[in-house]
């Protein structure tokens, strides 16, 4: 899958958040979106996932057949989409049936994230970091080419951060794309960095040049 974003601008509550944002990603690419709090990192991810309408500019996908952009992506953010009264396994099974394209079974996905024991526990019993790992396990139960991660390491311990870095590397090796909004180094080797600053976005290009 290829994703290209052209001159994207975002306005929320009448205030211009960012403008003239452009980037393009191809198979195996990763983009780390950085910037101070409130710079619009989450807004950019919301636009990509189709929850927010851009003020200007366009987002285009290619090489995905008839699927629309929201149908090719996994979004993991602050609102984790987990139901507290369902068990981790039930939450993942629901996501798998709803999103289609099944890959790993829920138990296997949880084991990959070191949470095999939580399969039959209600999510309400889990800690913030464990909840986040259940949400990340969703990336593994369904195959989708683009991962949109909003602060994926929030509440994660160092061991889990390493597991996440591993998962992202594996996903990219298989031709997947990763876009992560973050304040910390994620272990995304060779990732481009997109820095959103104030009303104007400054882009630092490295691997983008290579494939373009």
């Amino acid at each position: 899958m290829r994703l290209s974003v052209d001159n994207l601008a975002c306005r929320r509550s009448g205030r211009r958040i960012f403008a003239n944002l452009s980037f393009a990603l191809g198979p195996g690419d990763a983009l780390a979106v950085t910037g101070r709090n409130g710079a619009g990192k989450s807004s950019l991810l919301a636009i990509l996932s189709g929850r927010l309408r851009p003020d200007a500019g366009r987002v285009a996908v290619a090489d995905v057949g008839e699927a629309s952009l929201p149908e090719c992506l996994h979004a993991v953010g602050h609102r984790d989409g987990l139901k507290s009264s369902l068990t981790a396994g039930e939450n993942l099974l629901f996501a798998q049936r709803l999103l289609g394209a099944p890959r790993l079974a829920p138990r296997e996905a949880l084991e990959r994230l070191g949470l095999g024991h939580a399969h039959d526990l209600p999510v309400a019993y889990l800690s913030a970091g464990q909840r986040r790992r259940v949400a990340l396990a969703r990336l593994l139960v369904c195959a989708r080419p683009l991962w949109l991660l909003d602060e994926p390491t929030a509440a994660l311990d160092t061991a889990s951060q390493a597991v996440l870095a591993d998962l992202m590397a594996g996903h990219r090796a298989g031709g997947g794309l990763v876009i992560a909004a973050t304040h910390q180094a994620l272990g995304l080797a060779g990732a481009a960095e997109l820095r959103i600053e104030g009303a104007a976005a400054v882009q630092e290009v490295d691997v983008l040049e290579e494939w373009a």
Partner: protein
Amino acid sequence: MTRALLALIARDLRLSGRVGGSGALSLVFFLMIVALVPFALGPDLNLLSRIGPAILWLSAVLATLIGLDRLFQADEEDGSLDLMTAAPVPLELVVLGKVTAHWLTTGLPLALAAPLFGLLVALDGTAMGATALTLLAGTPALSFIGAVGAALTASIRRGGLILAVLVLPLMIPTLIFGVSAAQAASGGTVPFLVPLAVLAALTLIAAVVGTLAAAAALRWPE
């Protein structure tokens, strides 16, 4: 597509039965209103059996409103709705699944319990059966109409009041034809089937319009 729909219905049914779910809430609320009416009106059995179908219907409408505000709001708050919009199925189908699950946990139990609760308002056998049948045919309309309001107020905290103000007027036709069908069964000039057919038509219209309108309301970006 069917698998996604069934998964959604199964999840909502499971949620309503778990801690914090609203499984029995509507039914208990329904029982409370129906049980209180004879105390308020006094033990006049003729009066009770005359207004019985109306009381059951009124209670059913109010009981449907209970918990309706959480229909989409709960999913909007924790991000499940984002998950559903990312599903490879149209949002209309998601709405259809959620409303079906809502009806299975509110409307259907109300209709099934109506003959039993009819005893409290001195209904005879015919009226009990007729009221249960009209509730079975009419409560889906209440769920579908309510879903439009629930979708519009999904991102508003404490949106329950606005929701009730929005959807109650739209539920009035269903209430009118539901009660008139139930009363037509136990005498009167109108044959039972006429208001029942109108009621069924209202349900079908609400199913189409409600599904499309609720999906459009949910899709409305910020």
